[in-house]
């Protein structure tokens, strides 16, 4: 936990209250995923972390299983103030959205069958699917820039889960060790995100 202190006098160390409020703000401003907002808040506005430290923690959060921004709140909170910091950041991130979404869930259970609402939602669902396709295209560009094992692994993961519809755990248990072995022996083709 000395990482923050070592990285220079320009960085500030937040209190638990500040940590909580920052993650509440990140949660409430983030539409369609909260990580970009976390970066803006922590690196640019509050200066609690350098961009390099953020990228390190970001990479860790992405690489760990589970919701990325949730992992990030725990990793960052733990760095700042151990278990208390992790808990405070997590509750700040999840608490307010959880309340909002639960209210929406109740409303949806009552009014989800209204014709006008279901029409609006089918429009938004179509757009939401489009956004994930766009996200895939953006991520695929650097990876498919050259032909190599990363592109092959991505295609196999896609086909296994989307077309054949194998269970995710099965696909990962088979594919992750193969990908790891390839990355170990053929690091040349490694693509940076």
């Amino acid at each position, binding site marked *: 936990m000395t990482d923050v202190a070592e990285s220079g006098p320009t960085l500030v160390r937040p209190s638990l209250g500040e940590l909580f409020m920052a993650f509440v703000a990140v949660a409430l401003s983030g539409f*369609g995923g909260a990580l970009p907002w976390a970066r803006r808040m922590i690196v640019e506005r509050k200066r609690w972390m350098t961009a390099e430290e953020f990228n390190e923690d970001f990479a860790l959060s992405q690489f760990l299983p589970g919701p990325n921004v949730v992992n990030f709140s725990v990793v960052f909170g733990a760095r700042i103030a151990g278990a208390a910091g992790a808990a405070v950041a997590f509750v700040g991130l999840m608490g307010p959205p959880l309340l909002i979404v639960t209210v929406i869930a109740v409303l949806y259970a009552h009014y989800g069958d209204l014709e006008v609402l279901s029409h609006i939602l089918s429009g938004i669902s179509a757009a939401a699917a489009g956004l994930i396709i766009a996200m895939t295209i953006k991520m695929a560009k650097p990876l498919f820039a050259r032909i190599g094992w990363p592109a092959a692994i991505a295609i196999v993961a896609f086909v296994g889960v989307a077309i054949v519809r194998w269970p995710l755990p099965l696909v990962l248990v088979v594919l992750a060790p193969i990908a790891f072995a390839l990355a170990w022996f053929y690091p040349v083709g490694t693509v940076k995100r």
Partner: protein
Amino acid sequence: MNDDSPLTALASYFALLSLFAIGGAVAAIPEMHRVAVDAMHWMNDRQFTDSFAIAQLSPGPNVMIVTLIGYHVAGFAGAAVATAAMCGPTCIVAYFAAHTWNRFKMARWRIALQAALVPVSLGLIGASAFVLARAADKTIAAGVITVATVVVAVFTRISPLWLFAAAGLLGMTGWL
């Protein structure tokens, strides 16, 4: 609580998924769809895509779709149990990883592991896009909205909220 209780099913399923969701909540969408719609019949295609749309529209992490599925299956208790199960195991892993991760910054296994998981997540997120598009695009008009969104999102920096607003308005006309 017996084994047939929906809360037990939600808790054990999402706790397992929590540890297999490489690439985040979005990458786990196909698996959630496979179980919630195809295997367990907790909800139909439309309710699933509605839940995803609502989770995208709501402020906060994308993982909120899990809260919506949980509520749909077992009310408030379901929402709480599903969310806690999806976040709990991975939070514990993240907490311990936070302290050890940077020690292995230059380790060959860490570099290989990171490089190995990037294409896996990409494949899973692509699968998520495929499953969502197939569930959402039941009509040609809906397919056109999806394609238009892809084009706008890839080539411009317009906020997704505007795309949602436009798509919602088009949907309201009842053409989809």
